[in-house]
């Protein structure tokens, strides 16, 4: 189905392109996008691709003096594939900028290639602290745990939780969730009564939940993605463990509520994107997403991808005419108050985005913003 649509789309695009040629030679600027389209993390990559296509279609139909084309390559979330794709993109002289990859690991492996070749790379999701430090060519459009951890720690302490249990997945990212959060809690006089990691994709959280319950914490802070999150919340309910759960923006996905149902009620988390935000540009994206994918509202990751693509497109436009990799990089670095659906984005001197975080809670099957 997908493939056929793609073929028809490609056919149409060719027709339009050839039609356009007859009128005026519209120049084409190329970008690369490396992301997992098959394999265990394909669901994320497919979302990014949809978001990118929405952003691209909007850009190309807005009467700019040039068209942009994005070349998508499937990395399968595999570092070896990622490096091979990076070499391919670097060798293609027409490509002036690259988006992706999904995981920090693959993004960082590919970043070495982009660093030595001098290619701007903007990842929508790589949140490892060291990613943006690799070279002046790496940018990201996601808040890191260095920002979220202390923010959440203060939020929970303000609500009067003193004894806090922490669990997170056993990955580079999970480690940063725990360390950034725990340091702030301890600095502000709170107590971490339990801290443990689990293997991503763990089927049965009940042994850990039982162990957490024995420590009788006031609240649990969690570093997981929506699938593990849904399992965790369901199994807490099964065991009758009633302790407030807080999480990071990584758990923010409508699918979490779909999978966990009523058991997700009352979970608190931070987010940079809420589809219920009434701002027109957010609603425009939400509507375009629903129309393109036939799914429910987009989660935070597709929103980040949408913004990342738009930031890159804006940089290309700034570098026009005759965009080069260097000019695109400089334009990216100069990004200031870019109005995206995940809030206004400004890159600081270390190419890290500063974003405004929103506190949210699951209520009646929806993520809603809260003030405390």
């Amino acid at each position: 189905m997908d493939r056929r649509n793609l073929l028809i789309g490609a056919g149409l695009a060719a027709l339009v392109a050839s039609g356009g040629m007859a009128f005026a030679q519209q120049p084409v600027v190329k970008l690369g996008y490396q992301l997992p389209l098959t394999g265990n993390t394909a669901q994320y990559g497919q979302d990014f691709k949809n978001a990118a296509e929405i952003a691209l279609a909007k850009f190309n139909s807005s009467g700019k003096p040039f068209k942009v084309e994005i070349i998508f390559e499937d990395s399968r979330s595999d570092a070896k594939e990622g490096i091979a794709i990076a070499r391919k993109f670097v060798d293609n002289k027409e490509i002036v900028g690259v988006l992706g990859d999904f995981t920090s690991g693959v993004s960082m492996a590919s970043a070495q290639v982009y660093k030595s070749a001098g290619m701007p790379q903007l990842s929508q999701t790589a949140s490892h602290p060291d990613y943006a430090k690799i070279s002046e060519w790496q940018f990201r459009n996601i808040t890191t745990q260095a920002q979220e951890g202390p923010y959440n720690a203060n939020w929970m302490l303000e609500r009067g939780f003193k004894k806090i249990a922490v669990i997170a997945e056993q990955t580079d990212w999970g480690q940063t969730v725990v360390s950034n959060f725990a340091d702030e809690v301890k600095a502000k006089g709170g107590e971490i009564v339990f801290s443990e990691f689990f293997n991503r994709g763990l089927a049965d959280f009940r042994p850990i939940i039982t162990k957490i319950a024995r420590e009788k914490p006031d609240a649990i802070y969690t570093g997981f993605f929506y699938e593990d999150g849904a399992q965790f919340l369901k199994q807490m309910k099964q065991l009758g463990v009633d302790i407030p759960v807080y999480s990071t923006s990584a758990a923010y996905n409508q699918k979490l509520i779909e999978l966990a149902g009523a058991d997700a009620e009352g979970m608190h988390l931070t987010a940079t994107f809420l589809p219920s935000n009434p701002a027109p540009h957010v609603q425009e994206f939400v509507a375009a997403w629903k129309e393109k994918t036939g799914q429910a509202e987009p989660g935070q990751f597709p929103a980040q991808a949408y913004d990342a693509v738009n930031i890159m497109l804006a940089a290309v436009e700034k570098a026009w005419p005759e965009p080069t990799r260097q000019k695109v990089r400089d334009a990216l670095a100069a990004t200031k108050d870019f109005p995206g659906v995940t809030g206004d984005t400004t890159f600081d001197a270390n190419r890290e985005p500063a974003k405004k975080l929103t506190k949210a809670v699951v209520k009646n099957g929806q993520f809603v913003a809260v003030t405390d």
Partner: protein
Amino acid sequence: MDYYLQQLAIGLSLGMVYALMAIGFTLIFGVLNVVNFAHGEVYTIGAFAGLVVITAFAPPLFVVLLIVVAVGALAGVGLERIAFKPFRRFSDEASLKSRAMREATLMSSLAVSIIVREAIEIGFGSQFQTVPLDRLLNKPISLGPVTIVSGDVIIFVVAALMLGGLQYVLKRTNVGLSIRAVSSNPLGAKYVGINTDRTIIWTFAVGSMMGAAAGILVGLYYGAIFPSMGFIPGIKAFVAMVMGGLSSIPGAVICALILGFSESIATIFVPSVWADMVAYGFLIVTLIFFPRGIFGGARDRV
């Protein structure tokens, strides 16, 4: 004290989940003497078939199980036809005795498993499927200080029925007799006039029925149905089978329970990321001190 009882109860239910998978796995190994790497995919097919039936018709669980078992039997027969039968097409003695011919099916079943998994992924996507929440087998049941869920009871009953039924078929029926004959000596069975081809197909049908039933039950138990869901239970079933002596079904079940217990009890003392290591540690210890498995002493196979 309550805490330890609760961990034991969780260990028991984990063990039963592994046992459910290990029964069919061990049956097929017992007959063919090679690992069927596609058993995990039969489990996945069972779960997806059940989910499709539930979303389309919403029948009661028993009917879902019957349909899933039928799909499992078909999948098993198909798998045998594609991955195993072609390697039995030479019936001369040298080929029948050849280990290489038999072990080539390791690769062919692995290939089938990869193709099936990727095909499901293309069809359904790699994310967790949305399971209607009221169909989940996770209603809590309080037993004094310990909480179990409805799925624990159902899985226990189904696993006990499978084990009992299988022992009955193997020990008391003609089909069972021929399965045991092929299992202990395929060439000899052929010489005394047993239709070994048909026996192997039967074994695949029965083993895969159990694999598929396990898939939908565990899928509804955890509410987690996704294309690669068969991988980890497959590994655990494999470990249970090896510990149990390769071809002893009761041995595999007991070892699956030991695995479940050791995982949940290990969590009491070490972080959960190490729980798997404890289970595999058991495997290594077994292989060093009981090279034929804990229950592998007897001659009788299956």
